[in-house]
């Protein structure tokens, strides 16, 4: 076994272990802040997997968008809403957990069975595009995927406007019931939240 092959194997096993254990941590850890930082590790090692797959451009895009934007946003949101709160106990939580675990285990075994039983037609490595992939992605984006590309830009614009409108305090400053202007501070702090039923 040559050195390159061994390195690849070691890289792959370490990266996929980090992905899976990190994802388990994201889901299972008690502290939401730890989950968010572990999520960053998961994203980074997925970028590493992309590097193993010869896709350096997508790996960099993954780091830039997921780690640099999505994860930072998530951490920001956590810092804005992270208040110690005791969750209300709900009944039949345990049976829900058991059922969902069973469903997920069934699904994972089904997926793995499909993965292993189907014989995939592997293209020969000689036709691989390798480092030229950035150019090829550009060609695709401006020829056969031009419409999705343009639509994606509209989607991003819509998402930006939507996020600003939803998150700003002074946009929805009219009381829905009375139509009077309200002080947002009151809605947030002292006033009984409008949507909660009194019981």
């Amino acid at each position, binding site marked *: 076994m040559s050195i390159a*092959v061994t390195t*690849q*194997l070691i890289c*792959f096993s370490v990266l*996929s272990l980090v*992905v899976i254990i990190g994802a388990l941590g*994201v*889901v299972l850890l008690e502290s*939401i802040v730890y*989950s*968010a930082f572990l*999520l960053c590790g*998961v994203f980074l090692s*997925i970028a590493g*997997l992309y590097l*193993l*797959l*010869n*896709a350096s451009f*997508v790996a960099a*895009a993954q780091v830039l*968008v*997921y780690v640099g*934007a*999505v994860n930072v*946003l*998530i951490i*920001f949101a*956590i810092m*804005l*809403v992270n208040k110690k*709160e005791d*969750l*209300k106990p709900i009944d039949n939580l345990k049976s*829900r*957990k058991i059922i*969902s675990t069973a469903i*997920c*285990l069934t699904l*994972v075994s089904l*997926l793995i069975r499909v*993965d292993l039983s189907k014989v*995939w037609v592997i*293209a020969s490595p000689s036709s*691989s595009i390798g480092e030229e*992939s950035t150019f090829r*992605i550009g060609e*695709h*984006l401006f020829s056969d*995927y031009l419409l*999705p590309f343009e639509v*994606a830009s509209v989607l991003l614009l819509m*998402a*930006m406007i939507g*996020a600003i409108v939803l*998150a700003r*305090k002074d946009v929805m400053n009219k009381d829905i019931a009375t139509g009077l202007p309200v002080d947002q501070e009151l*809605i947030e702090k002292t006033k009984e*939240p409008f*949507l909660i039923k009194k019981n």
Partner: protein
Amino acid sequence: MNLESIPLQAFLIVSSILFCIGIWGLLNSRNAVRVLMCIELMLNAVNINLMAFSSFVDNNLIKGQVFTIFVITVAAAEAAVGLAILLSLYRNRVTVDMESFNLLKW
């Protein structure tokens, strides 16, 4: 670098496990932020699949990589809007517990 050492199936298995972890978290989290994180995990699992197929099966045209770029774009938009919705929910209900967002429940 050619990948003679790692089979395609290995990438697919990693992505299947990641996807199911995501689903489990989605079903069981009480914290709305964690639900969003689980959605990101599932999208990433799909991306690993697309990337693995594009590099093993279609390594000249690499359409899978283009799809991954689109998925990343949509995921970024989804995260921004999702977190904004979360913030305004938190403003109205002063909690991030998924169980208390039940106005649309029949």
